[in-house]
């Protein structure tokens, strides 16, 4: 492989992996607090449609991004209310979020255009690549990492920040403890349920942001089924990343890379059909999970929060 090819694949990998990184880290934060949220796919697709619609009507990318994060957080609030306050099953509630999200997104896609028309096929504002002088002329990685858009650059800052928060601050330490033993954290005087609400909404906002990167940068515009299961891949990546931000990025790069290779192959006129190539990310998700699970079959050794998915109530402490 030539260096140019490596550079180009790395560039697409980062570009394609950005939405996954945000969604995965968001889900990891939520899960660390003890809440399993399977609504990521629904939140991403809602983020994609509202982000695009808001940016289209206001002409502002920032408003688009904020709208996407807001809608993600709002759906997450619903999940938090149903699972934390009403103590419903987290798995089914997450699935419900995804079902509502995909349904509502295609409904909105038909209604939020000009004059209650469709958004499909419209061209709106999009993030442009902002080449960073100097850094972008580094060999191999320069083009790939530093000729990207703002959302990608924010990711470079965001990952170390999240790492710092989780491992080096006291709220971060409490977050880690919350998923292991909520009763202990509560005994320290920290309102676990309130924090679970907050972290679930943070996760939702990040999933929304991931969705916005899809509709405002990666494949600009709105089309039905835009996320194509990326939300689910994010849920799988959390396990792959063992709930760690840097590994989440590594996982997202890997998946972005598969995407890039697939594009390359299609562009070079391969005889393998598009349908079969499109299977690659899904097959890889399964393989990655199998590898991670068989490397250490114990969930605890992977670092899964012990109280993940277990509803917590003060009165019924065990």
């Amino acid at each position, binding site marked *: 492989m030539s260096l140019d090819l490596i550079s180009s694949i790395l560039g697409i990998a980062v570009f394609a992996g950005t939405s996954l990184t945000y969604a995965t880290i968001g889900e990891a934060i939520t899960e660390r607090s003890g809440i399993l949220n*399977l609504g990521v796919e629904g939140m991403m697709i809602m983020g994609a449609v509202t982000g695009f619609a808001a940016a289209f009507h206001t002409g502002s990318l920032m408003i688009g991004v904020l709208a996407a994060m807001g809608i993600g957080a709002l759906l997450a609030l*619903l999940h938090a*209310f*149903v699972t934390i306050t*009403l*103590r*419903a*099953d987290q*798995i*089914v*509630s997450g*699935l*419900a979020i995804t*079902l*509502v*999200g*995909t*349904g*509502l997104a*295609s*409904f*909105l*896609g*038909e*209604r939020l255009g000009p004059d*209650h028309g469709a958004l499909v096929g419209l061209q709106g504002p999009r993030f442009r690549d902002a080449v960073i002088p100097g850094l972008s002329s580094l060999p191999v990685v320069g083009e790939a990492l530093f000729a990207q858009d703002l959302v990608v650059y924010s990711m470079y800052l965001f990952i170390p920040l999240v790492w710092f928060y989780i491992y080096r601050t006291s709220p971060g330490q409490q977050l880690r403890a919350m998923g292991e033993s909520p009763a202990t954290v509560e005994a320290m005087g920290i309102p676990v349920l309130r924090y679970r609400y907050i972290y679930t909404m943070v996760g939702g906002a990040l999933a929304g942001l991931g969705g916005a990167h899809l509709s405002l940068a990666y494949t600009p515009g709105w089309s039905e089924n835009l996320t194509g*299961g990326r939300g*689910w891949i994010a*849920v*799988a990546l959390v*396990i792959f990343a063992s709930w760690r931000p840097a590994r989440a990025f590594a996982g997202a790069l890997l998946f972005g890379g598969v995407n890039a290779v697939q594009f390359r192959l299609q562009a070079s006129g391969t005889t393998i*059909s598009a*349908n*079969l190539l*499109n*299977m690659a990310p*899904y*097959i890889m*998700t*399964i393989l990655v*999970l*199998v590898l991670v*699970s*068989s490397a250490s*079959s114990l*969930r605890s050794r992977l670092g899964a929060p012990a109280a993940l998915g277990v509803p917590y*109530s*003060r*009165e*019924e402490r065990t």
Partner: protein
Amino acid sequence: MIRFRLERRIDPPRYLSWAVPVASVVLALVASGLLLLAFGANPIDTFAAMWDGAFGDIFGGEVYSASETLVRATPLMLTGLAVAVAFKMKFWNIGAEGQLVMGGIAASAVALFLPDAAPWVPQTLVVYGLIMGGAAILAGALWALIPALLKAYLNVSEIIVTLMLNYIAILWYSQLFTTSWKDPEGLGFPGSALFPEFTWLPRFSNTRVNVALLIGLVAAVGVWVLFAKTRAGYEIRLLGDNPEAARFAGVSVFRNILLVMLISGGLAGLAGMGEVAGISHKLQQGLSANNGFTAIIVAWVAKLQPGAIVLVSILLAAVFVGGDQIQMTMGLPASVAQVVQGVMLFFVLGGDIFSQYRIRVSRERVGVVA
């Protein structure tokens, strides 16, 4: 300050088991009405048009739309039963969609290739129906066996694996009808050749309702018998309710995961056969119509009860058929149906708390934590 506290009901009254879901569904309709209103659609007109589309002409002598509701309900019934069997054990089979598609592919393979490959097989509906059904059950069950084995041996999350297998099955299936099995005489349209007529499931009078509906009803009875009357059913329920106790009692998790997924995948596979042999009579776009996902709503709203699954699948089918109607007459997107169903699932989910807990309202001084 008024405080709400939840108190677990020791012995929930029986009427709650149906009153709560019914109330939840009603409230869900009100909530989706408000949602419609927020997006500038008149909810009363919308629901009236949906009702009309789903059942409207039932009293007018024609049965077309009501029969279409039953047509739509058929695969939902089978996939709803499929996921309910797995959910009873808290095995999260989100892959009924892929299992349905694999069943449809297998049944189509039989209908398309067996007559030439084995001309000595009697070309009658009974023989072919049995072979196609068997192939569909087998294909669905084998597709479901992948996550079952991965879970049983390696503890790989079945949620993700079943989901990913959906995408793979759907892509493979569109590969088949657009390339390998594409009808050369199809004038370039994607789709397989038409099945020979002796493989078509019989229909009732001039509707599209076919024998697959009866298969669904029989399956509902079968699932009821499984859980109410058999030891295997008892073990599955025990594993779902209290895995610790079940293991202590010597119930094999491993064996039951495999059993549950074989049944679950088999039922979903049958749904696929019903769609190709009863409705489309060929492999074409549209076999995968989100039935596997809607099945999750069906199963949960029905509280995993086979009898209720039959009723709920008809209810949700009516929402779908009504959704198509409002798209045609009111220009509203058909995805309204999906939204209504999702909201319904939420209300049933949230409403559950009222059957498990009693809400106590009390006045307390601020600062006193219960």
